[in-house]
């Protein structure tokens, strides 16, 4: 099968997957107790008022009809309007996207060099003090959930030591204008992937260092650094690269937790708020964004794998 046909097939499958996810989420949201009208009515749940709200929000139309309308809108690129604020969903999403992109982008950017460096350093010093320290730290950090790590970092570095702001409360809309607010959230997001990827790099590196071609290169008297970087490392990276794709998926979930702890008004916070408000159009649009990202990232990872080992494609 050619690469183009494979890509096309995967893309079509991806579209079906995204629609399936959005449908599932629609059904699940409908199954939640109460709707946006009930939530909006709050502590004055006057029945007449709820009925009026429901009518105004068009929630009195059958669920299947609303679903079909939403799908037709999606096909035209129209995501609808938020039930609670009446703003176009695309605008609501556009407001939440930049902080999430900044967080995820910077995390991915820092992830590769840090985890490769840690993995290589541990492998080279295998069994010695540095390796043991790195192993203890990475295994230890890996077992702390993000929200717990977030609270601890805020307490120590923000409240106690005052080095960084504890939350992004009051930060400018563009978080890059105040990079200090990003330090702790990115540290939390980095903690687990750095651990898992550096462990994989370390293992791959140890294998490579023990392999015949590295031993041979050393016997030839090639400089140690060059042996490490050009001979051993590329082979050690393969398992790490696979893990990177999985990490990108994971980041979407991690971002929701981290945004909540650090009060960052990104897509994760938006998802939280819209589920609480039963704001179905916003929830649906977010699911499309998240599902699309997952499909695309996995497709890219598989295409990269195809380039490396064309025979493995199924």
């Amino acid at each position: 099968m050619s690469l183009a046909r494979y890509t096309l097939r995967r893309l079509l499958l991806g579209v079906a997957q995204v629609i399936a996810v959005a449908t599932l989420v629609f059904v699940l949201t409908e199954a939640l107790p109460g709707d946006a009208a009930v939530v909006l009515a709050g502590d004055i749940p006057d029945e007449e008022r709820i009925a009026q709200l429901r009518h105004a929000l068009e929630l009195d139309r059958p669920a299947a009809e609303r679903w079909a309308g939403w799908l037709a809108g999606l096909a035209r690129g129209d995501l609808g309007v938020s039930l609670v604020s009446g703003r176009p969903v695309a605008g609501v999403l556009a407001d939440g996207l930049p902080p999430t992109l900044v967080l995820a982008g910077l995390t991915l950017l820092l992830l590769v060099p840090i985890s490769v460096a840690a993995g290589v350093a541990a492998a080279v010093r295998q069994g010695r003090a540095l390796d043991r320290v790195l192993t203890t730290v990475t295994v230890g950090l890996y077992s702390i959930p993000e929200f717990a790590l977030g609270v601890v970092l805020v307490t120590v570095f923000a409240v106690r030591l005052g080095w960084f702001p504890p939350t992004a409360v009051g930060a400018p809309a563009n978080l890059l204008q105040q990079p200090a607010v990003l330090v702790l959230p990115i540290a939390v997001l980095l903690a687990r992937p750095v651990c898992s990827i550096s462990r994989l790099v370390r293992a791959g590196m140890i294998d490579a260092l023990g392999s015949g071609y590295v031993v041979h290169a050393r016997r030839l008297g090639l400089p140690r650094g060059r042996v490490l970087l050009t001979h051993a490392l590329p082979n050690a990276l393969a398992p790490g690269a696979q893990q990177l794709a999985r990490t990108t998926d994971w980041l979407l979930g991690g971002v929701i937790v981290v945004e909540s702890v650090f009060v960052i008004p990104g897509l994760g916070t938006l998802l939280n708020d819209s589920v609480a408000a039963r704001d179905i159009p916003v929830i649906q649009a977010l699911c499309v964004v998240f599902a699309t990202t997952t499909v695309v990232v996995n497709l890219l990872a598989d295409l990269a794998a195809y380039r490396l080992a064309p025979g493995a494609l199924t």
Partner: protein
Amino acid sequence: MRLDRRAFLSAAAITLAGCAAQPTARTASSQPSRGGRLRAAFAGGGAQESLDPHLANLFLEASRSKAMFDKLADYGTDVSIVPRLASTWEADKKLSTWRVTLREASFHDGRPVRAADVLHSYARIADEKRTFRAKANLALIDLKNSRAIGDRTVEFVLRRPYAEFPNVLAAFGAYIVPEGADEFSRPVGSGPFVFGSFQPGRSLLLKRNPDYWDGAPYLDELEYLIANEESARVNAVLGGQAEYAHDLTPATARTHQDGGRMAISRLSNSGMQAFAMKVDRPPFNDPRLRQAMFLLADREQMIDSVLARAGQVGNDLFGKDYQYYAAGIAQRTPDLDQAKWLIDKAGAKGMKVQLDTSAAASGFLEAASVFADQARQAGLDMTARPGNKDTYWADVLNKGVICCYRSGAMPIETHISQRLLTGSTTNATKWARPEFDALYDQAVASPDAAKRGELYLEMQRTLHAEGGFLIWGFADWLLGASPRLRGVANAPANTLDWARFDKVWLA
């Protein structure tokens, strides 16, 4: 899952932040000084947030509305009515036509506040096709026949005689907007602060209104920030990102009250804490069982364990220390033997009762579990049934038999008319008695305040003896503020001086 994590987060933050608190010297209170920006952190509603003052629902929105707008009247600290944009009001002999005179005030764009603006605002709120919160309060105004007399006098014609009309002028959300205003992306009001910039779900920046009729604010700028988690609001004050954190839990307040890094304000008597028993269905249609519940409740224990002592016991009556409160009725004390006897008489020994609760308000889950324990000691098999917090109020209005309930400040008359009459829209106890309705009608048709007081007293006696509300306490409202912030008034939540920033200053 989310709740568990929240609970864990706040507990962890409290514990850890407590370890970190270092005492610093507190400076003595100073003379008001001008200038500066106050950053106030509130829980927000994300996409639900609106600057439309008539849509105000959340505490955040109530505070923002009062910063930019005024009502004709508002609740004083004892929830009596104080004049605001209205300088005086008087009724005709029949109490069905009221003349309200406006004070001299102007909107932020320089236009004067006129009678036409008042009529427009009330018509907008009362619009049949819309669902504004104050609509029910304004329902008895016959707006078609009400009119402006000149620019500064409004004549309101009511559908029936009503002595408590000033309560309507002060209703939650009854703000005055300029004539024709229906869009509030850049709101224009008459309040102490002028709109600056707004990012929904993030922040609202306001600037000082130097021409405010009630005296220009001390602050130059006021910024509202959003932090839904209590721990984030506390950390924002501790970390210097905010000077005011709204709504803390008693545990946090206790942790920080002696630390010196955050000043704790306790706004006493802010929140009624209750259980609402439905009197129209078994088992609580039996007055003996309601009586038993009143007697088995150990209110002191509830204050201790649910409110961490940040509150005072209730006597099953709304509006402690408010105007018309029946302070003369003796405080109930626990009498377990009598309660057991009554439960036995009612044939309810060992009866399974589910107490509805949820995380809709802080302390509900704790209150339900403590009270269920107390009820079990008296022989009822009561268990707490946690429900969905987002839809809680609609769920418990008609379903179940007993639920956790709370209320902010409002006049006793408003509490009665919204919750305890046959036609009340949010009657959670299903208290519907023609003779009680008649007493109410008689009271609000009486021009004599002393006579009204007698009638309200009689109604409160009935409620105390056999009503559906078991009102066990009144919680303090807790705020955390930077030690630099001065002038924060001790006023119950929802009253004029609560979350009001034109009278505070930064030292």
